[in-house]
């Protein structure tokens, strides 16, 4: 039976059919749906972990114990999990271990566009790249076989376009698997230097075997057509090549590390011009050139951003510049930047921070939107967890910033990698208030549960972290909970904590507006009381507009959070239908 699946759904299906027993992940676009799908399939112990390092270590332990196991993450997640990955490459596995990295060329929702195939090369493990959902399913199953045959973790690399595009997939059934026997083997699994030296030789020998395998694997294939152009491509680029150069011969690589040197040489020898078509880094191209083979590639194709068929048409068929944009003189269309939702609890926090004119080290999540106008209350945002640690550095470097600097971090992000930063603040006596924005979910990536929400991936009840108890245990003496939409309470608390000269934790607690089932009644502006001072517009709520010369609240968007009523100096905003007092 054929079903329409996204690449991520297909990976989950492939893992399930291949008998995966344990799967762990931390959410991250474009990888999140892999675990969300696995959670719906029977016989898989699927879980959210607090971060990618933990997820990969859980999957690793499961594999050592004899199960097939999978860990999934977005590309930057593998930076967090790089430590276990590079050493798991030395110890090898027992049951198959597949690590999925979902890269994001074009940065649809990421802070960089690193090319994670480099991790496979650095770790000396195989890298498998599917080019559609059918391959995503088939290659995942094959990656498990490969992992067990060569006793190595396997990196399955997708990109946003593979993970999030849907195409038809022939699905199968689950093959029953028994746990492989677990035997204690410290010389393999305890990676002290004496063992690691031996294991390194194993890794090098394994890489040679894998290079051999690359020549004969069904993951790589040659499609002979016209021999004037021969293209080497993998992943989504293969589909663009088929679209734009339907007559060209193609060496399609499903295994992009290690490369099949013999296959590449013989393919190149039989075509007039070799092109290597790959998004981001010249990962294949550099290696092909190092084999002494002349080829075209990044001399014409961009290193930045995502490809589409037009990219190839321009670079390879030389069709010239893209069609012109709107006619000169026509006004630019208004942009539609992502915004905090109506009723979002984060809005109150950033409005207060802006009013107090503070230096704000931020973090990653919906609340990063606090950097956008009209709130514009964020100074830095680097990577998950960096808010607290960066604030420590700032106040250590510049004492003028003491008393004016706060760190802002989401609940999921705090549990991901903020706890160690907070410990550092206590240990090294950094006088910074830390605002933990506890909206009871991982909102940014589509509302996943985490160790603070009291529910598991499957929605079952679980222990919910007590942030105040944790902060106290780490040594923070000043701890409090505030309502982020109660501006006066929030500002008073911030002022006190900023003046205290020691670390503090303020938990700003209110559930994400998209989670509350029963929003309060919408508010309305009383035109008789409104003086058009525009104060309410400065909170940046998409439900409030002044487009027609008067301020109005869209009842279809407003969820009655009341923040605007609180900032109105003329009491002009109240419940719709009720005259304001």
């Amino acid at each position, binding site marked *: 039976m*054929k079903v*329409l699946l996204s690449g991520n759904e297909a990976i989950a299906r492939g893992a399930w059919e291949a008998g995966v027993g344990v799967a762990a992940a931390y959410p991250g*676009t*474009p990888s999140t749906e892999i675990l969300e799908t696995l959670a719906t399939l029977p016989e898989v112990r699927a879980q959210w972990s607090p971060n990618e390092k933990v997820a990969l270590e859980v999957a690793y332990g499961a594999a050592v114990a004899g199960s097939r196991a999978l860990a999934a993450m977005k590309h930057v997640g593998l930076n967090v999990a790089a430590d276990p990955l590079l050493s798991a490459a030395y110890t090898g596995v027992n049951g198959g271990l597949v690590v999925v990295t979902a890269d994001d060329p074009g940065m*649809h*929702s990421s802070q960089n566009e690193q090319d994670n195939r480099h991790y496979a090369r650095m770790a000396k493990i195989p890298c498998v790249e599917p080019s*559609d959902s059918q391959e995503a399913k088939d290659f995942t199953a094959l990656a498990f076989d490969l992992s067990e045959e060569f006793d190595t973790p396997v990196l399955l690399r997708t990109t*946003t*376009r593979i993970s*999030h*595009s*849907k*195409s*038809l997939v022939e699905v199968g059934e689950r093959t029953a698997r028994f746990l492989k026997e677990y035997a204690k083997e410290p010389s393999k699994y305890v990676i002290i230097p004496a063992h690691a030296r031996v294991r390194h030789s194993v890794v090098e020998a394994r890489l040679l075997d894998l290079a051999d395998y690359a020549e004969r694997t069904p993951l790589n294939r040659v499609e002979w057509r016209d021999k004037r152009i021969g293209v080497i491509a993998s992943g*989504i680029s293969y*589909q*663009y090549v*088929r*679209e734009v150069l339907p007559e060209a011969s193609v060496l399609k690589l499903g295994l992009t590390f290690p490369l099949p040197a013999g296959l590449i040489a013989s393919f190149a020898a039989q075509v007039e011009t070799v092109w290597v078509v790959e998004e981001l880094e010249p990962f294949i191209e550099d290696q092909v050139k190092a084999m002494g083979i002349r080829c075209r590639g990044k001399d014409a194709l961009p290193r930045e951003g995502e490809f*589409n*068929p*037009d990219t190839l*048409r321009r670079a390879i068929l030389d069709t010239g510049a*893209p*069609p012109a*944009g*709107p006619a000169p003189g026509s*006004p*630019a*269309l*208004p*942009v*539609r*930047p*992502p*915004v*905090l*939702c109506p009723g979002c609890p984060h809005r109150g926090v950033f409005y207060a921070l802006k009013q107090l004119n503070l230096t704000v080290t931020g973090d990653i999540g*919906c609340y990063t*939107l606090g950097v956008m*106008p*009209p709130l514009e209350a964020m100074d830095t945002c680097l990577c998950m967890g960096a808010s607290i640690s960066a604030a420590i550095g700032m106040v250590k470097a510049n004492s003028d910033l003491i008393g004016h600097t706060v760190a802002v971090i989401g609940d999921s992000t705090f549990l991901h990698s903020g706890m160690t930063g907070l410990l550092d603040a206590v240990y090294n006596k950094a006088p910074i208030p830390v605002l933990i924005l506890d909206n009871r979910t991982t909102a940014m990536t*589509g509302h996943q549960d985490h160790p603070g929400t009291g529910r598991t991936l499957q929605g079952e009840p679980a222990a919910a972290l007590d942030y105040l108890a944790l902060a106290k245990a780490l040594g923070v003496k000043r701890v409090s909970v505030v309502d982020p939409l109660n501006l006066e309470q929030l500002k008073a608390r911030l002022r006190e904590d900023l003046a205290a000269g020691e670390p503090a934790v303020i938990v700003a607690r209110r559930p994400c507006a998209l989670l509350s089932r029963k929003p309060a009644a919408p508010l309305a502006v009383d035109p008789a009381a409104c003086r058009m001072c525009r104060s309410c*517009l400065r909170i*940046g709520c*998409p439900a*409030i*507009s*002044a*487009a027609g010369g008067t301020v109005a609240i869209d009842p279809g968007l407003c969820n009655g959070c009341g923040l605007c009523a609180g900032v109105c100096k003329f009491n002009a905003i109240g419940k719709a239908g009720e005259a304001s007092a």
Partner: protein
Amino acid sequence: MPEKTTNLLLAGVGGQGTILASKIICAALQEAGHDVKQAEVHGMAQRGGSVVTQIRFGNQVHSPLFGRGEAQVLVAFERLEGLRYLPMLAPGGTVILNDQAILPVPVIMGAQAYPEDAVLRLKEEAGDLLVVQAKEIAAELGNPKAANTVLVGALAGWMARTATNRLTQAHWLSALATQIPEKHRQVNERAFLAGWEVGRR
């Protein structure tokens, strides 16, 4: 001679239900025996940004993406988004427009102006423009949220009238049945049929 691949573009604003609409469309295409690929951009879209979905169907589809000037049909869930993605439309292509404006924040803040002549410009540049009062139609049927299904109906009706493909109304209704949960099905079926009538004109 392989059948040419057909390209559809759905453009709207986060929260308008473009993703469910594209699921229904893909299911109907699959019912009718087409190869289908669909690409969408997730992530920040949820927070009120533009949401764009590309659907391609035919005998065998390779790339899930197509380029500028290649969409045979643009289904615009909102006027400004219709205008924004107009360059994706193939020469002589059709625009199916939900006659609704959702103001982006820069407009709300008074920093930029909403293009008041959007419908006019779409009319000038599209080969054919079909304006649908999807929100009003859906509201009359009892659920303004079903505006997306009205638009799917309009697309379906338009395709039945003009295009050479294998889709019948039965394919669409069975797609609705698989994609929409029982309790919302009735109103969505009515929304679809109301849209279908507009599309058939």
